């Protein structure tokens, strides 16, 4: 890449992907993770279309008969990106449905709190002590209870 426009565009696309994935890794709120996923997908699609660009070429649509007006940009990455954008919105819709379900179940969207309560719930349902806890479950190993179990102490 020796020309500045190409460098700027590639830097922009890579920057979007890095900001998106960094947002997923670093965020502590579940909704912000979904927003960062949106950004990462936009960046990845931009990277794909950048790979098919050609200088001084026309868009791949023939408006004046069968003969092409000149060299055209590559239509194959554009077809792939068309598919990818629609799949991205499907994934975002499913992620938001799951976030809504977590909210309705726990009442909070803070990642640390959701993680703690989820581990406590799973450990309580299975009758095993929490990972890292020094307590053993009271008595012998209980059957999966119908109601909340007693005797589980959080560390």
């Amino acid at each position, binding site marked *: *890449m020796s*020309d500045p*426009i*190409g*460098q700027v*565009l*590639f830097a922009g696309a*890579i920057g979007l*992907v*890095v900001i998106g*994935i*960094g947002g997923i*890794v*670093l965020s502590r709120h579940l909704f912000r993770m979904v927003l960062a996923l949106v950004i990462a997908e936009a960046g990845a699609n931009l*990277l794909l279309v*950048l*790979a*098919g*660009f*050609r*200088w001084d070429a026309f*868009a*791949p*649509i*023939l*408006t004046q*008969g*069968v003969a*092409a007006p000149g060299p*055209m940009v*590559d*239509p*194959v990455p*554009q*077809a*792939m990106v*068309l*598919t990818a*954008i*629609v*799949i991205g919105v*499907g*994934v975002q*819709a*499913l992620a*938001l*449905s*799951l976030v*809504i*379900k977590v909210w*309705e179940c726990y009442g909070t969207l803070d990642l640390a709190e959701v993680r703690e309560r989820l581990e406590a719930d799973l450990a309580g349902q299975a009758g095993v002590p929490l990972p890292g806890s020094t307590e053993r479950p009271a008595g012998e190993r209980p059957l999966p209870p119908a109601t909340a179990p007693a005797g589980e102490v959080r560390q």
Partner: protein
Amino acid sequence: MRNLASLLFIVGLAFLLLLVTGVFEFGNPPMRVGQGIQQVGPQEVGAANLVTAVVLGYRGIDTLGELSILFAAATAGGFVLGRHRLARSGAEAGFVLRTGADLLFPLLLVVGLYIVLHGHLTPGGGFQGGVIIATAFFVPLLARPGAALDHRWLALVEGLAGAAFIAIGLLALYRGGEFLQPFLEKGDFGSLVSAGTLPLLYLAVGLKVGAELAGLLARLAEPAGEEAA
């Protein structure tokens, strides 16, 4: 400690992506397949929009996979969100919003169908037109929170459109070609009735995507039980 690890991860990711894209020469793609498609595409498929020719003609099976993924995502989203709640908030929107939504509905529907049907001539196609059709069915729902979309009709349209897509593909197989090969006659280049089965395939895709997304939006817009209005 956590921030240091995250910083190292982000720097490493940026470095990896820069290495991978540093091989590219911006503006001179190798274009091995693209060159062939540009030369024989207009005669072989008959569509003026080469991206449509690739999406439906040369890579039709990828479009079928995309329809399946969208269907799975919309269905799973509907499952996760729970069944239809009957508690309605009852506060209707004002006169301007209701009239505006009623005026926008036929306009959005016409524009969406135009984009779907002309997908093989101008930029557009099934997915863009399907999104606009879904919005056309959803905007009156925003203005009248008491109304509800009939999910059975939406499911019926979606199922029939998806089945029509696969049926056209199987018909091509039955005529001795391959699955999803375009097979009707190509017509005049650049007119509305051209490019064989491509407009029919895009019509099926547009109706399916429109019905699916309208159902998903209606399901998301339902108020929760204890929501503060």
